């Protein structure tokens, strides 16, 4: 079985992990167009290269980041998200709701 190295739990069977999608920047939901939002939600380069992606170690409920090649399936690096994200990200959900209030 394929083994992935979890930054918290060490090397584990790939079946313990859940794929969480590519790490990509979310557009500002208050200002972006529908097309930009669709691009974020549905569209993807989906190409052959090393991509940076979210993974979840299911038994420990732990999210982390992996760099993996999309053709060889080789996993080059796994690390804690704190290496990329060092502060809380707010999605301004409340103000978005206000913007959608019926007129």
């Amino acid at each position, binding site marked *: 079985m394929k083994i992935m190295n979890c930054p918290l739990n060490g090397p584990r069977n790939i079946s313990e992990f859940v794929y969480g999608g590519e790490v990509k920047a979310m557009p500002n939901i208050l200002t972006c167009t529908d097309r930009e939002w669709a691009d974020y939600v549905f*569209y*993807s380069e989906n190409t*052959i290269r090393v991509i940076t992606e979210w993974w979840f170690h299911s038994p420990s409920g732990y999210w982390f980041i992996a760099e993996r090649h999309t053709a060889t399936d080789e996993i080059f690096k796994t690390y804690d998200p704190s290496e990329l994200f060092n502060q809380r990200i707010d999605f301004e959900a409340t103000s978005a709701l206000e913007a959608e209030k019926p007129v």
Partner: protein
Amino acid sequence: MPFSLLKYGLKNDYPFENDIDLPLPTELKKHYDVVIIGGGGHGVATAFYLAKYHGITNVAILEKGYLGGGNTARNTAVIRSNYLTSEGVRFYKESVDMFKGLSNEFDFNIMYSSRGQLTLAHTDATIRSFRQRAEVNTHFGGKTELIDPQQIKELVPTLNMNPADMPVLAGLWHMDGATARHDAVAWGYAKGATQRGVELHQLTEVTDVIIENGKAKGVKTNRGTVSCGCIIQAVAGHSSIVAAMAGIKMPITTYPLQAMVTQPVKPFLDPLVSSSALHCYVQQTGRGEIVFGGGSDPYPLYNTRSTLDLKESLLASAVEMFPFMANLKLMRQWSGITDMTSDYSPIMGLSPVENYYLDAGWGTWGFKSTPICGKSMAELVASGGKVPEIIAPFAMDRFDVFRQVNEMGATAASH
């Protein structure tokens, strides 16, 4: 007669040498009216209908490997139309109808076998969705009904009615469900197309797409550059990669899909049987082998390797459904890479580039649609870009306006 054997053995040429199905390779011409990228079922079907219905024969199919060696060769050939949405059912229903006449149309046996397809429900929620699917299918002229456990037992006496402690509560019985020899479909179309003048170039990989002023003008290949009037891409798992050559980003993610087959046994299973709760579908081929498969791999990848994980989980489910399979030997396991859309419907029609047409997003369910895809893509091209009504709902820009055609529940582990 041993003597006739000896005669053939000593002869320089073989009995049917001059009776081959496909013309021998030629040089690429400088220009074609239509270039089709991808010599899978969809590509050759499009060429066939272009030549047969529209008289367009200055057509080149460029295939980087060999004819039908992609997902056309790897799929498990479930043919059915019992989807959920009106857009989907109408489209797949026409394809199933076309399949019935293909052997005649080709004068070539595609071994079409109309055995019916049975999907199992293990929960109330599934039964409700089955009711809806039966209604929609019936509305469009298909034969589909909800059946009870007693009827299921009669149809498939060997089925375990309590697999993995999930009792079978009901079934969606789709009488139009069928299977066919997948390779023969590609061969039949290729033969018919090339007989009418279409060129099939195998071992010819498209490496770039030439675009001038927003219009597709030609392609670069490992055998040189050709110019053309228009381009159709039908490359399944490689959709995003070829589209990127034309500067197009697609709402597609590529996942492997695996399947496997056992040693042959005597006929025991007439219908195709699937259970999405168990992530497994099982059918017996005309040769007696049991073909079975399940859901896609759990993460995206451009690789046709097989995995132990999937073998394990799929075998577990198959043995739950048909316990006697535990005694069988596995003969082969394989995989294909599939171009998945988030709504489990295809992407067909126009693209942001003029004269560049898309036939993509076929994921794990595109074999059954081969005839209707060929027919409607040919119509699209022959009309100079007028989108046939039957494929209009599958335009790529449906995602931009959040108007998906959701077939996820009706596709899942049945393909």
